[in-house]
């Protein structure tokens, strides 16, 4: 299960958080845990360079893209490698929508589109689409070209 997708700005303010199968009372804990993890480790990290950690049986893969940081949390089959696959899809979709690694402003300008992308990529904790070109078409309700 892909337990959480969380995107924050460089100060640690949440821009997007989508939890799956995480009880409401644990979300706040996860939010602050992830933001702290990013504050401790993301300084000086290059765009899309992946950081990784595990907490109990849960894996966390996170990175920086422009002025936003992206965190993915998973368990069981979504281990560190599956998460790095998923975060690659997320980062390429965001870059695609924004045209470049986004500033916070650009990210918020394209907020609706980004939500649609995330909706195509992760659906209730399962990875659904992984191809950025297909995702680009799907969010405009255009059929995929590659079948």
């Amino acid at each position: 299960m892909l337990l959480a997708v969380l995107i924050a700005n460089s100060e640690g303010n949440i821009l997007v958080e989508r939890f799956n199968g995480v009880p409401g009372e644990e979300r706040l804990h996860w939010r602050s845990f992830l933001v702290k993890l990013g504050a401790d480790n993301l300084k000086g990290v290059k765009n899309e360079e992946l950081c990784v950690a595990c907490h109990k049986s849960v894996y966390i893969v996170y990175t920086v893209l422009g002025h936003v940081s992206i965190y993915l949390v998973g368990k069981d089959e979504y281990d560190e490698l599956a998460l790095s696959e998923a975060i690659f899809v997320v980062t390429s979709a965001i870059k695609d929508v924004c045209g470049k690694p986004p500033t916070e402003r650009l990210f918020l300008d394209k907020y609706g589109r980004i939500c649609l992308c995330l909706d195509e990529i992760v659906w209730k904790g399962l990875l659904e689409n992984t191809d950025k070109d297909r995702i680009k078409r799907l969010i405009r309700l255009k059929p995929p070209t590659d079948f």
Partner: protein
Amino acid sequence: MAQYVKKDDDLDEEEYSPFSGIEKGAVLQEARVFNDPQLDSRRCSQVITKLLYLLNQGDTFTKTEATEVFFSVTKLFQARDIGLRRMVYLIIKELSPSSDEVIIVTSSLMKDMNSKTDVYRANAIRVLCRITDGTLLTQIERYLKQAIVDKNPVVASAALVSGIHLLQTNPEIVKRWSNEVQEAVQSRAALVQFHALALLQQIRQNDRLAVSKLVTSLTKGTVRSPLAQCLLIRYTSQVIRESSMNGQTGDRPFYDYLEGCLRHKSEMVIFEAARAITELSGVTSRELTPAITVLQLFLSSSKPVLRFAAVRTLNKVAMTHPMAVTTCNIDMESLISDQNRSIATLAITTLLKTGNESGVDRLMKQITSFMSDIADEFKIVVVDAIRSLCLKFPLKFRTLMNFLSSILREEGGFEYKKAIVDSIVTIITDVPDAKEGGLLHLCEFIEDCEFTYLSTQILHFLGNEGPKTSDPSKYIRYIYNRVILENATVRASAVSTLAKFGAMVDSLKPRIFVLLRRCLYDNDDEVRDRATLYLNTIGGDGSVVETDKDVKGFLFGSLDLPLANLETSLKNYEPSEEPFDISSVSKAIKSQPFAEKKAAAKKPTGLGAPPAGPTSTADTYEKLLLSIPEFSTFGPLFKSSAPVELTESETEYAVNVVKHIFDKHVVFQFNCTNTIPEQLLENVTVVVDASEAEEFEEVATKPLTSLPYGTPGQTFVAFEKPEGVPAVGKFTNVLRFIVKEVDPSTGEAEEDGVEDEYQLEEFEVVAADYMLKVGVSNFRNAWESLGPDFERVDEYGLGPRESLKEAVSAVINLLGMQPCEGTEVVAANSRSHTCLLSGVYIGNVKVAVRLSFGVDSAKEVAMKLAVRSEDEAVSDAIHELVAN
């Protein structure tokens, strides 16, 4: 929503947020544009984005707000704008309307689901599945089945992923789709195959044969996506695990497949296969080698995720097969300087497990520079690993002890400091040469220790160990400093420690008296009371001194009771005329550490759920048995064994047995768990065949009325045996019950059931079951107090053994007694060893045992067994145990 911060207006344009000053109320007002007769698609999309922004920040809508927005949103189905339609699908899912509201959109969605535009269909399927209930699902089931085999991968994936979610809520419907899903597994589209494989396995997960067939066919065929390949590897290892449980012999099935995956082009697949191989039960080093080789390559990968995954897996392998991992040591050492601290910590702890004695010094040098820049939680892991290393290579204690003392002086939180102190104490206990140096390190630490708990622990330990050193006087200064400088709790501890020195070291007595007399004027009453008491006991106030033996017994003697048991009994004691009776406290030691380890090994069910607090098992058992009328006349419970598993893990029914020993009876408690959701078991009993246990006669059975899925229950069988006699025997068992089918959607069971049986493993009652593990704090005193009257000494040849350590632990397990003074630890490479054991045999007979072992170059182990007890017959019985 706490994290959202409004931006200041004076920030420049680039930083200005389009959602600046956003407020839920205002957005809900804006949402009225959805009702306009002339829809402005652009505006509507913007408002939906704002709603999404609020929801994604963790904001919630009240029921009325959500309903209102939902109804307005449904109007947007009239709009022709494609972008807006996509947003509508998303916001409906996010709003998750209640079942009575859903009806308003179902017709629109059903229309979309049959639309000519494939992408409308995919989205409609996802929305419908998100908001649907059982009845609606039966209406659309036909379309979903078609969608699963649709040629458009987007539609097929949408239906399959929906199936995975729906399986949780409506399993009986989704299970009917297995033919279609089976077809989708063969799809040429990579992701469709991935989703279909996941769904098919979940549909069939309770049918081992079907999963095995699925794995067999797919491992021979083509799997298109790396993600699907990873799933297949996981399912394959599950099949391997289950087939090895069934006791199949010969070559391991599917190993070749796993090994082949190590050459896959995707790193994800390679890693998954390598991990699967390392986790095979009873994996041989020949099987491990190729997996270790690829993991070693990953260690020097430029991708942190790969390095992390590899080092994490190797760290696990090092626990069971340290030799297999040594080939990676050089790569592992370079990871100590890895930027990612998790990777570095894992590398270090792995090296500590796999390193050889000669490399310890170099390794410690590297670790020292690394310790300063990691968090406490990582440091604790390292400290624990260092403790294990020191026990493995006792000759290296100087280096390791110096390291521990240096980190003890640095900054750190309580848990970290406690871990270091615990490690030093363990090393002092197990490595005699480390004692004096270690005690001094601890003394220096308490000179500047901010944690009362740690200070008192160290003072207590110092009191027990310090007087036995060559120069006890050097510790007095550190101890008395505590009396001058610390808080009352620490001062009281220091007074007790001083008294211990006084009692044990005659030459120090006069000086200790002076110090203790000063404590009589302390401003805390506990400190004063202790000082008075000890002065009185050891004769510092000029009174008639009690005998030396009594004094030491008072100061050093333990209560011979586990403190946790005493605590529970005291809590249960209600103040009355009748004084508290210490003999009523159970002496059984709970094997808590093992239980904790087991619990830790289990997969956690949720995120960060706190572990259940430890419960006193001995107490719980006694209460439980007393509450059953059939057993209430059996008298006090002597001992309860640890649970013995009678089934393999992950079988249909999990059963283990706890053996409760009474004076004239034995009660077997069978703990049963039903792991099949579709079944309810009733009238559950265990039929025990005692034909190989002649002295036992069955007297009572207590069946379990009902055993629903997932809730453990107990059934009991009681046997009578000759009083006070340690009767032994073997028992074969069959679980007998009435099984009823359960409708998973309603949870109701059918009226009629079928009788059924399930074969369980056999178990034995052995002599060790009649021995209570009761430790003594001073073995010498215990040994001498038992006297030589009933001492029995004999010598035994134990034949060639794997190692001296193995022989010692085998004899300890055979006797079931408590090792004393850390003598269960055998120094590496030693050729002889003495082990001291104590216990209480059935009939409340105290027993002490001295075991002297010797091993020759051919690994032949000889043992001298000396037993003292309060009863001649018991001393003989212990010898018989070993002789047999």
